[in-house]
Every structure is written in structure tokens, then in C-alpha cells.
């Protein structure tokens, strides 16, 4: 790559200052020559951060974890195993990690993670974050992952006998644990109406209400397997909801794209007709846009709400006025039947009032009931639908059949009809 760091590309590290965390003789840390190589190069280094924290706090757990990580780098194997640790009244939220090689690194014998649910949209003020840091430094290692793939703040590295007290202090400051195991998981939302001009519903509010509604199932897993919500404000799907969640709530609109003709002209004046043709019209997936008398025309009936033209001309175009959500269901990654995108279950639902939110949550309850009755152990809802059938699901959840649920009608002629 142009401008790439030569050493980094070759994988070698010859930079000065490697190991400058000061883990030489007489210092708190043991030598970690492999990990030191990760202090080279311009990207921020987690190893430097860990070493500085370890030197400052002199927490033995941090030294032990660095030693065990160095050992992993040398032996190319991982050495953590799970177990069961929870706080009073909860059955989830702590990810338990015991070292398999605690005879070698007794200081890292326990290194549990507390999953904490952040505010929707991952918004913070510094008071909240500083309180979190102070409590975490008091009881835990001081290592924080911002954020885990399910959206949690991951407080990494605490011993079992400190977990309850740490949680109580966090809980006093308004923090609660996220999910783990076969239950509702922490939700994720994009920035939504907080800043984005494309937000088609208040995804932060829906996120908060939905996760509060299912808070019992977050803390006490009772389903076949995990269930994840992600809330994206528009079809750009910045939270990766379609692939990374079982319940992908994606903002959309029902009427025509809003066009500010003056701004369209200003865009064309600035960038030229060629740019309009090549970068906007030719990229429209349904050929809904054409050039007429040098003006851009959008045929609303052909628009599939993909967002491309709005992304290219954010000042001139915006989503329609009649806004709401699409619900797609069953997205998940590899384990165990392979990658699946969520599929369209509800093409459009208004999401403006508290009644709308109530109706939405009722629908989700119906869907979960169906899954509870039909799913197998360790089966995500998308896998259940694949095994049992979309038709059966639609009937079970009391939904109406909609052509938007499929790419095309069936091509397999073997079926039994009702007549």
C-alpha cells in the first residue's frame, strides 16, 4: 500500500522504542519480547496501553495476563476456559474466564469480564465514563473494550469475589449488565436522530424501550438460544443489523424521496452531468432515475429505498416524509448452518408514537413465543425458520403474507395448496 509502514508490511519490527513500556530488569513487568513487537507502527497499540496501566497500578493480574498472552504468542494457543459466575438475581452478564495454566501464571488465574449495557447510540458524557473508570479501576484490572461485537462495554479482568461489589457500585451509577447465553442480548443502535440526516425513526428510543421491556430475559436467559436486536436508522444499516442480529430493525420510508430541485441543480453545476450519470443514475439498482431535459427524475414506484442517491447527494435528496421501520429477521453468522442475512418479515411499520412501540413489542412477543414452541436447543430463530419454513412462521406469528418477503415466488413445483 502506498504510504504503508514498510516494517509493518514486512511484519518485522525494527522501530526504536519497542518495549519502551519499561519491562526490563527491576521493573514491575516481566519481559514480553513478542508483545513488544506490537508497539511498533503508527496505529495505537493495545500492548502499550496495557503496559502503561500495569506499570502505574502494579496490579498483579495485569502482569499475569501479559505473561499469559506472551506465552500464547509463543505457543500459538489460547488458555482460557469458561465457568459460571453471576451476580445476585441474575443468570447472565459475566463472562467467566479461568486460566488453564494457572500453575504457570497464577496471577492470571481468574480474568472474568463484566458486560455492561451502554446508552443506545454509544453516547457518553465524561462524568458517566469517569465514574465507570473509577469503579473499574477499584475492583478490576482497568482493561476496557469499547465495544464488544454485541455492543457491550466489556470490563475485562476481575476476580469472582469482587464481582458483586463492583456490580453494586456500577448499578448505583445507573449501569446494568448485558446479556449472555440463551437470552436477549444487549442491543446496538447507530447514532440515529442524534446526528444523522437519514434517520427514519427514533432508534435510540426504540432501543431503550425494547431492551427495558426484555430486561428480565437479558438477565435470566430462558430461550432456545441468543436473540439480538440491532436498530439502524436507515437502509445504510450502519449497525450491520441485517447480518449481525436476529431482529434487524431498519428505518425506511413509504412515500417518495424528497428532492430539493435547487440543490440538485447546484450539485450538477458543481460536479457536472457526467458525475450525475455515472455516480447517481447508473448506480440506481432499479433504474428508477433518469435524465429528462437535463433534470434528474426519480420514478418513485421503481425506488427500492437503497439509499445510494441520497448518500451521493445528501444536501439535495432525503428520505420521504412517511417514515417507519422494516423488520428483518434471522440474520446470524457461521455457527452452525452457515451465514444468513435476515429476511424481510414486516416491510413497513410506523414507529412514531408510544402505541406504535407497544404494537411492535407485542409482535416481537408473538414471534418469540413461536420460536419457543418450534425451536430446538441452540437454534437461532433464522435456523428455526429455515428448518420449519417461512410459511409456517408467518402463520404462527400471525403475520400477513407480503410479496416483499421474497425475492420471487417459489420455483419448486411440489407443494400442497389449501384448496
Amino acid at each position, binding site marked *: *500500500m*502506498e*504510504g*504503508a*509502514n514498510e516494517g*509493518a508490511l514486512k*511484519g*518485522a*519490527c525494527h522501530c526504536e522504542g519497542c518495549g519502551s513500556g519499561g519491562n526490563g530488569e527491576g521493573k514491575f513487568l516481566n519481559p514480553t519480547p513478542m*508483545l513488544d513487537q*506490537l508497539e511498533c*507502527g*503508527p496505529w*495505537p497499540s*493495545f500492548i502499550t496501553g496495557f503496559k502503561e496501566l500495569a506499570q502505574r497500578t502494579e496490579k498483579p493480574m495485569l502482569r499475569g495476563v501479559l505473561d499469559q498472552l506472551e506465552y500464547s*504468542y509463543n*505457543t*500459538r*494457543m*489460547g488458555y*482460557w*476456559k469458561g465457568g459460571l459466575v453471576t451476580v445476585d438475581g441474575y443468570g447472565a452478564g459475566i463472562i467467566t474466564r479461568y486460566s488453564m495454566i494457572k500453575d504457570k501464571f497464577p496471577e492470571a488465574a481468574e480474568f472474568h469480564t463484566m458486560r455492561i449495557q*451502554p*446508552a443506545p*447510540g454509544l453516547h*457518553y458524557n*465524561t462524568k458517566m*465514563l*469517569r465514574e465507570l*473508570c473509577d469503579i473499574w479501576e477499584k475492583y478490576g484490572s482497568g*482493561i*476496557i*473494550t*469499547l*465495544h464488544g*461485537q454485541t455492543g457491550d462495554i466489556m470490563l475485562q479482568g476481575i476476580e469472582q469475589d469482587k464481582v458483586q*461489589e463492583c456490580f*453494586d457500585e456500577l448499578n448505583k451509577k*445507573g449501569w*446494568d449488565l448485558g446479556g449472555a447465553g440463551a437470552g436477549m442480548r444487549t442491543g446496538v443502535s447507530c*447514532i440515529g*436522530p*442524534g446526528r444523522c440526516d437519514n434517520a427514519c425513526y427514533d432508534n435510540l428510543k426504540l432501543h431503550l424501550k425494547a431492551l427495558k421491556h426484555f430486561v428480565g430475559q437479558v*438477565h435470566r436467559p430462558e430461550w432456545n438460544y441468543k436473540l439480538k436486536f440491532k436498530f439502524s436508522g436507515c*437502509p445504510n444499516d*450502519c449497525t*450491520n443489523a441485517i447480518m*449481525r442480529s436476529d431482529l434487524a430493525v431498519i428505518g425506511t420510508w413509504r412515500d417518495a424521496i424528497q428532492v430539493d430541485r435547487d440543490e440538485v441543480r447546484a450539485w450538477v453545476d458543481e460536479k457536472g452531468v457526467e458525475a450525475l450519470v455515472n455516480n447517481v443514475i447508473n448506480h440506481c*439498482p432499479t433504474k428508477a432515475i433518469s435524465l429528462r431535459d437535463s433534470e434528474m427524475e426519480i420514478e418513485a414506484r421503481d425506488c427500492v429505498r*437503497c*439509499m445510494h442517491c441520497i*448518500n*451521493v447527494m445528501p444536501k439535495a435528496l432525503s428520505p420521504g416524509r412517511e417514515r417507519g421501520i422494516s423488520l428483518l429477521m434471522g440474520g446470524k*453468522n*457461521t*455457527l452452525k*448452518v*452457515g451465514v444468513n442475512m435476515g429476511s424481510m418479515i414486516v416491510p413497513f411499520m410506523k414507529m412514531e408514537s408510544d402505541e406504535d412501540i407497544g404494537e411492535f413489542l407485542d409482535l416481537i412477543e408473538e414471534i418469540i413465543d413461536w420460536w419457543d414452541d418450534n425451536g430446538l*436447543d*441452540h437454534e437461532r430463530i433464522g435456523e428455526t425458520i429455515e428448518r420449519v419454513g417461512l410459511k409456517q412462521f408467518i402463520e404462527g406469528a400471525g403475520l400477513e403474507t407480503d410479496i416483499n418477503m421474497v425475492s420471487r415466488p417459489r420455483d419448486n413445483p411440489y407443494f400442497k395448496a389449501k384448496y
Partner: protein
Amino acid sequence: MSSPERTWKTIESGPHPYEEALHPVVRKNYGKWKYHEIPKPGVLKHVAESGDAIYTVRAGTQRQDTVDTVRTLCDIADKYTDGYLRFTVRNNVEFITPNEENVEPMISELESLGFPVGGTGMCVSSVAHTQGWLHCDIPATDASGVVKSMMDAVYNEFKDMRMPNKVRLSTSCCSINCGGQADIAVVVKHTRPPRINHEHLSQICELPKAVARCPVAAIRPTVVNGQKSLMVDEAKCICCGACFGACPAMEINHPEHSKFAIWVGGKNSNARSKPSTMSIVAHNLPNNPPRWPEVTDVIGRILGAYKEGGRPWERVGEWINRIGWKRFFDETGLVFDEDMIDSYRHARTTFNQSAHVRF
């Protein structure tokens, strides 16, 4: 753990409330944003219907942070953005301010502290990744280390906006791929069936659960030394490692035989083309800590070819769809082989069911 002297009664509140975490100008214009611009890499400008404008400065972080890092970021927020900050789904930190004059000093200070400012528009953004050897119980490698090595190599592509479109990277330390679908993804591929520790297995595993976990029904009950255990039909096994998650006595990770594979063309956005899953374009790359140079080399080749040949707004998968897989392999110098032909369920949907050919 319940402690007898505990006096606090848990409040099951769910997510932390967000309103107190929004900048007052954000709260004032909530849901009333008109348009946005990207004045320069790493900086966004959003204008509200009220005429208010806010500026966002976005920076890369190491993701595996510490309380010290977070406090440093809080210092920046207190100094320049009235004490408000947020994170993106791709682990970038964002500082939002209505004061344009705070933007440049903030950039200088972030950069001087080692946080690269960028990650906007047509760039290579931060990597979605997994926990690896630091914390996961089923990893074959260390995602954080791979990511650090990769981002060092593409550092300038994070800070610039010279790609045809956004490039999302992800890294996963086992085949379960918690890193997710991305334009370019690094995912571990185990290459040998699990090694069974019969002594432990009968004590720590629920046998039916381990049997049920196998996607290809390769696991069967057996008896070893008079004890109930499991066996793996190695001809059937696809080395996915799913059983290891249910039963740690079926060790799949191996220092030599857990390799790396590179996948391309995944995308979640609906823009232009529908969301897509990734395809494999390289595998059998060694797990080579601490810098994984073979992985970084392949990523560099793909990014280089895409940057050179992609048209404006084409994501990696869309670029490949236009030029065809044959040219993709030609231009990246990677080699297509028989193991890249799907051999699992619904494989025929990935075959060329047409007479379209590229020579």
C-alpha cells in the same frame, strides 16, 4: 456471589439512558438534521433545519483500551466538546462540537496523543474484531494483534479518503467468525479434525449436545476404555470447530494447523446492491505472531487492486461483480483453487449456472 452485608438492591434498568449523554446542541436539534458534509478526512459537519451546525472529529482507537486511555479521551471531550463523546460501531471515538474553531486544535491534540483522525467517507475504517488469546475461550489466534499489524500497514488509508468507497475490515480468531461479514475479512480456518481427550470428555461434556452441534453429523457416540465418549468421522468432518465450543475436550486449535483465510465482498448496507456475504480468496496462510506478515500482504494486494480499479461508489464486492472473479484473481495475484468451490449446503447457487465466461 451473595455477600451477607450487601445493602444495595439491584435496579434492573437495562441500557444506560442516553439523553444526559447527548450534547445540548444535539438534544436541541434531535431528529431535525438537514444534511451533512465531510469537510476533510476525519471531520463531519451536520447542519440542522434550525441552521445550527455541529462538527464531529472521528479518531481511531486500539479498542482494547484501558481506564487511562478512556480518561485521556474524556480530557479531550472536557476541553473541546463540553464533556460529550461517543463511539461508533467500528470502535472509533467521536467528539461532537458546535464550535468550528475547536476542530483543528482537537485534531492536533488527538494526533499528538497517538489517536489517528480519520475513518470517514471513502476510507479503510477501523476493524471489527474478536477477543482472541486475550480473553476468548475458543480462539486459534489473537485478533487484536492481527488488527494492530494490519492497521499499521493501512494507516494512511484510514486517514485519507482515496478509496472508491468505504472499506470495512474484520478479523475473527476462529471459524465461527464473530468479526462478521466485511469487504475484506481475516478468518481462522482450522485444517485438522478435533483431537479428542477421552479422559476429560466423559467428565466435562454433555455428549448429546456435542453430537447435535456438528453441522455434518460427523460426531458419533463410542466407548473408550469402558467409558462413554465420542468419535469423529474424519472423512465427514469439515473442521469448523463448532464441537469445541460445546465440548472443550475436542481440541480444534493447533499451533500449526489452524491457518488463516481471507474473504472478500461482504456488505451489510442496502445501498445499490443488496447486502452480500463474503467469498474466500486465499487460505492456508500461517498463523504467524506477532505481526502476521502473510496476512497483511494479502490484504495489501486486495486493497491495492481495488483502489486502482474500483469505480467511485463501488464497494469491494460490487467492483468484483463488475470485473469478474477471474480478473480479481489476475489483478491481485491470488490463486483460485478447488477448495474455494463451495461443497456445503446450497453450493449450486454459487456455481456458474449460465454460459457467461471470461477469457
